[in-house]
């Protein structure tokens, strides 16, 4: 098995917000993640690209505890959430959960809640002051270009608007890192732009993000690092210009060729 640890653990002062080491995951007997290691430094935007079935979504879902890894470590800010495939206690995992936000491919807004309630309910349930949270939610909605939509219900919004509500909902938890799982894949082509725009805006504000995407120009423009995954391994990673314009691996070249034209 090739060693994919292109990113040895850094021993600098500030630990990475997320560090994954030798992560393994199999569904039944199919190995989906084979020894994945990566670290996400604060303020960085990392794009994960690759063909479908390459394990990129599973990687994000493991990092957000929606899938249970079979082996390896997951560390947030230098603290073990998963050590050698053994998960921390439920209470500890809940504390780790406050560190990240996740945006799903198909939004997963709560259809029976207004936009404002979708965005603001979770922090309020966690004991934050209701008015403070609502103000924050309103500001986030404004930032997402959704001013005046706070009382609408999800079904009254376009896909692009719904996804921007979902981003606001995740941000309202004040996460340290945002995960995007193919945020534009369920959208009509004319609506992807508005969603990519707000993600780009977050990148400009130095929000730490991991984005699984098929939007190559976006990945190239926004990321600090691009990771190409295939068959459950990280085939290649590095500077976006280098990966896109001068890929070292044949599999990367093959994959990127499809997007040229």
């Amino acid at each position, binding site marked *: 098995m090739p060693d994919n640890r292109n990113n040895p653990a850094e021993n600098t002062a500030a630990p990475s917000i997320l560090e994954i080491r030798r992560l393994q995951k199999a569904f039944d007997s199919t190995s989906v993640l084979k020894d994945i290691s990566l670290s996400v430094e604060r303020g960085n935007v990392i794009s994960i690209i690759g063909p479908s079935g390459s394990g990129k979504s599973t990687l994000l879902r493991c990092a*957000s*505890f*929606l899938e249970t890894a079979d082996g390896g470590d997951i560390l947030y800010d230098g603290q073990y959430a998963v050590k050698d495939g053994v998960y921390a206690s439920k209470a500890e995992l*809940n504390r780790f*959960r*406050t560190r*990240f*936000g*996740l945006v*799903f491919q*198909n939004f*997963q*807004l*709560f*259809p*029976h809640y207004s936009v404002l309630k979708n965005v603001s*309910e*979770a922090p309020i*349930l*966690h004991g934050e002051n209701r008015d403070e949270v609502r103000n924050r939610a309103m500001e986030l909605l404004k930032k997402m270009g959704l001013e005046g939509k706070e009382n609408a*219900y*999800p*079904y009254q919004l376009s896909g692009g608007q719904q996804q921007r509500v979902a981003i606001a*909902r*995740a941000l309202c*938890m004040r996460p340290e890192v945002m995960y995007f799982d193919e945020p534009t894949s369920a959208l009509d082509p004319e609506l992807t732009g508005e969603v990519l725009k707000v993600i780009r805006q977050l990148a400009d504000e130095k929000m730490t993000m991991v984005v699984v995407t098929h939007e190559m120009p976006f990945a190239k423009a926004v990321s600090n690092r691009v990771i190409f995954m295939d068959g459950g391994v990280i085939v290649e990673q590095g500077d976006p210009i280098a990966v896109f314009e001068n890929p070292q691996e044949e599999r990367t070249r093959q994959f990127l060729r499809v997007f040229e034209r």
Partner: protein
Amino acid sequence: MSLMTMILKMSEGLSKTCAIFFLTLLFSLPLGMIVALLRMSRIKVVSAVTRFIINVLRGTPLMLQLLAVTYGPYYLFGVTVARNKLIPVVIAFSINYAAYFAEIYRGGIESIPIGQYEAAEVLGYSKLQTFMRIILPQVIKRIMPSVTNEVVTLVKDTSLAFTVSYQEMFTIGKQIANSQTSFMPFLVAGAFYYIFNVIVDWVMGRIEKRLDYYR
């Protein structure tokens, strides 16, 4: 006997018909949720046993269950049959309807996309908060048409209480029909049930409309 006296006599039993109806709903609606959750339990024995009980309750006549609950204790343990038949009648109805409601709830709960649970989990909702705030409200909206169906059926099923001679409206009607050798009481009973269900339909329609604010 004039038609008017007939109607008056039968409407005296109407309060008992209503008692069966409302008490059955009161007990079977929540009981059905408990049964549904047991049915979906991850513990195999629990879900298998629950499934078996549901199948027995749905696969045998309600009339038989009524007789079993009312007279079973006497034949099995020699316990005297309760003077007030309302208790065994409501027990039998509640258990039977809980089985039907449980399957409706289960269908509703299973129709909610897993993504809704995942979104709530990532946002730090507890299991209970997720169920009460995110899942259940959506389930209720989705199952309303099926629940309405069951409630309409329940109105008509209350007439089965005649098998244990509980003096509800239909039982009285049947007695009048026998003593007067008249078909009229059955027509009156039919009219009563129909009007009852018109009201049920209206009420359920109102509830559905109130849940119509989202899709």
